[in-house]
């Protein structure tokens, strides 16, 4: 019943509709767009270094003659998947760990929060640097997602935990206990939905953080390696020349902004759909 009601409210929500359409379009552009471009992302045009956008190179070229249109779309393909997955995993992990720690308290709380604190104080780059040589052989983008997610959920989970502690005392949670509903079900049915506003905001922020963060991780030899590109590496490379050769920076950054914006819209819509207090 709830899922049906929420889905109907979500569909009725204008923000969510526009957001999903925008995200769908971005995905389509990322995967189908390259077929319309004149150049492949691997090609280099040695006649046009750092040329501004024109009829031939729609979004200009890089310093080694790569077509910006082709490589931006190529980067988008990776970044959309990585961004969304990381956001889902890290927010999901934060919600589950935080809610379980907060709800059960005592022993479970201490162990989980000890783990969270440990992950917070350990410099994530150090861990990644230690792990990276071992994974290098099979370093697929999935590992990449796992590592990014593993180091971005802790603070949220602490927030979730403290909110859960106050929710735990609510009468509707007590009512569920007295009905004989298992505790893990109470967490997923009563606690997590009531944290959804926070979790949705966190997830949308995580999308952009993951896409930017991926560039930093590439430095350690993970996932996207040159000559392959991602939005993160493109933005990192282009930001130095943002004023002189704006197209190097503007197109990947613009793609990122559009991506985050559409996720934001979906998030807002979802939040409104889940929140009975909103009128939309």
């Amino acid at each position, binding site marked *: *019943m709830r899922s049906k*009601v929420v889905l109907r409210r979500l569909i009725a929500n204008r923000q969510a509709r526009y957001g999903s359409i925008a995200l769908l379009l971005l995905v389509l552009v990322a995967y189908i767009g390259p077929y319309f471009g004149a150049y492949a992302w691997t090609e280099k045009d040695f006649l046009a270094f750092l040329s501004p956008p024109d009829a031939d190179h729609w979004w200009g070229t890089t310093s080694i003659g790569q077509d910006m249109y082709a490589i931006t779309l190529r980067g988008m393909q990776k970044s959309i998947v990585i961004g969304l997955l990381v956001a889902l995993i890290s927010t999901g992990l934060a919600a589950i760990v935080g809610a379980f720690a907060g709800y059960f308290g005592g022993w479970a709380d201490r162990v989980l929060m000890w783990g969270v604190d440990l992950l917070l104080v350990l410099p994530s780059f150090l861990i990644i640097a230690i792990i990276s040589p071992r994974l290098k052989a099979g370093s697929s983008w999935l590992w990449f997602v796992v590592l990014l997610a593993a180091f971005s959920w802790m603070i949220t989970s602490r927030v979730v935990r403290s909110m859960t502690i106050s929710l735990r005392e609510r009468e509707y949670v007590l009512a569920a206990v007295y*009905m004989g509903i298992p505790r893990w079900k109470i967490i997923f*049915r009563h606690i997590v939905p009531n944290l959804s506003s926070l979790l949705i905001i966190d997830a949308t922020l995580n999308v952009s953080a993951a896409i930017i963060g991926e560039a930093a991780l590439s430095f350690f030899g993970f996932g996207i390696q040159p000559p392959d590109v991602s939005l993160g590496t493109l933005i990192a490379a282009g930001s130095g020349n943002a004023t002189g050769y704006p197209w190097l920076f503007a197109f990947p950054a613009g793609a990122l902004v559009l991506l985050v914006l559409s996720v934001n819209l979906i998030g807002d819509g979802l939040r409104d759909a889940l929140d009975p207090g909103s009128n939309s």
Partner: protein
Amino acid sequence: MSILEVKDLTVTFPGGVQAVRGVSYEVERGEVLGIVGESGSGKSVTSLAVMGLLPPNAVVSGSAKLHGRELLGMDDDELVKIRGKAISMIFQDPLSAFTPVYTIGDQIAEAVRIHQRMAKDKAAKRAVELLDLVGIPHPDVRAKAFPHEFSGGMRQRAMIAMAIANDPDLLICDEPTTALDVTIQAQVLEVLKTAQQETGAGIVMITHDLGVIAGMADRVLVMYAGRPVEQGPVDDLYYRPRMPYTMGLLASIPRVDGEEGPLVPIEGNPPSPSSLPPGCPFAPRCPMRVDMCDDEEPPLIPFGPGGGRSVACIRSHEIEHKGLTGADVFPVPVIPPSEVVRVPRAERATVLELDDMIRHYPLMKGAVMKRRVGTVYAVDGITFDIAEGETLALVGESGCGKTTTLQQIMQLAPPEGGRVVVLGKDSAKIDKAMRRALRRDVQIVFQDPMAALDPRMPVQDIIAEPLRAHGRKDVRARVAELLELVGLSPEHAERYPSQFSGGQRQRIGIARALALEPKLLVLDEPVSALDVSIQAGVINLLEELKNTLGLSYLFVAHDLAVVRHLADRVAVMYLGKIAEIGTVEEVYDHPAHPYTQALLSAIPLPDPEMERTRKRILLEGDLPSPANPPTGCRFRTRCPKFATQLDEAQRQRCVDEEPSVARLAGAVDHGAACHYAEEIEVITASDDQEEK
């Protein structure tokens, strides 16, 4: 000449919310004007507008004159000079009305020094005097205490002391006793009367409690949907209400001296201030509605001989002529009698049995090395049982252990001491599967209908939750059936709790509790969060469900009037112990324990004549901490009998020996835990009490 003169006051909030729509009243010197209304009727907004305390986006029009000086539109610098000096306000929640980081004495002294040129030490002295005036013991010591060190009743007294610090001409009291227990409420109302005599101020008393108004007010203004609908001297209005809303309100309140039988409910809900019905706003709920009522809103016009009385109803003369009362006008539902009750109590099955149940909480200290520094004796050995089809009410003030008892029962876990036997099964001897199965038969309805329903779940899911948890298949049909049972429309199953009014939400809570067809329903203050006009409907529903479904209720409440109406037996708790237990008739008509007597005499009756003549047994002080209860009889520190009627040897017994519940001679089902139990009448005959 009147102190305050309010004329055609209107307050509109952004979004077209007309909170107040034309209120006019006058307050004379030394007069108490009671403003009654349900939540959302605009009674608080009216007074905030007079004080100039509304948020800046509220649009206020009309006039409010203090001694002929217009208050509305006065700029803040001038208002500051009036607030606290000419007009003072007493708020509902005294904890949030004091700044937590300053001592009470400093805050009162500050109030004095703001409006009077006075040296610091003199102001401090005045603060102590004021605290003494409002009856705070050891005022010189207590003045140095911080707000959190005061109990609720003490804080409200201090608030009154602060309000009268500058001899105001007008006191506005906004629900001054709503957050307090009845015995404390009686104390505070007494202090308010003293304060009024001391200052000669006029008082505007805003409350929803018709009992409090009956005892305090000289004149009453009844508000509905932002407008006064009836106004008049208190006796006239209470004995001869001429507007159907007032009539319904007066008829719908359960009375502690009242009869059994269904209450008079007012159907429907108060209209939302942003979408008022055309014509009379009460028309949709009014049993006397005629087509003309929808044409235009009736103005508040003078009524009857003598003046001072005005009514806003087009049929008021007809009501006067026929001498109608609330019970005549409003349809009283017929509640089918219970089948079970025909069997004598002794032969009925026992649904719940508590045998010397104990629940103590440890008091811990220290962050790292926790050590036990004491014990809170929350529930300290209580014994009672509930037979099939019976309602046992557990009454007592906050902190007496009612809620702890409930939780202990609902947890179905082994208690710390004693036994809890639910439907013949001892909670200490059942395994996990059995406990789960037992949960079907014991369900709970919570106090706050907003907090008890998950705000993010549609009603369908809320009611279906227990059904699914216990593996019922026909969920959808059952939910519709349950919604109908509690008087809601099954079409509303897809809505969220926030889309319902308080009374409707409580009905949803009841539907959820009934989903598994329990045998015992635990009701934790089920109507105390509801408005008076809604309350009656829910009480009737509970009564009807009990009779038709053969339920047993364990009913926890602090409102003794509701208890009288709904319960068969009543157990009065004091500091984790039962003070008195017995059938409702016995306990209410012949209370034997001094605490029960005080409790019953403290309840305000919605009857001005009786309120004036009746003699109150006022209790001294506050409830002692359950972490450090007095030796012997726990009530002796506040017991009026202990203080005035007993001799030294008798007192010694109270100090040394803890009384246990003993059956009173000559009563079938009535026991009291007092060494010197003596039955007296408290409620009806106030005269012979005086003789004693």
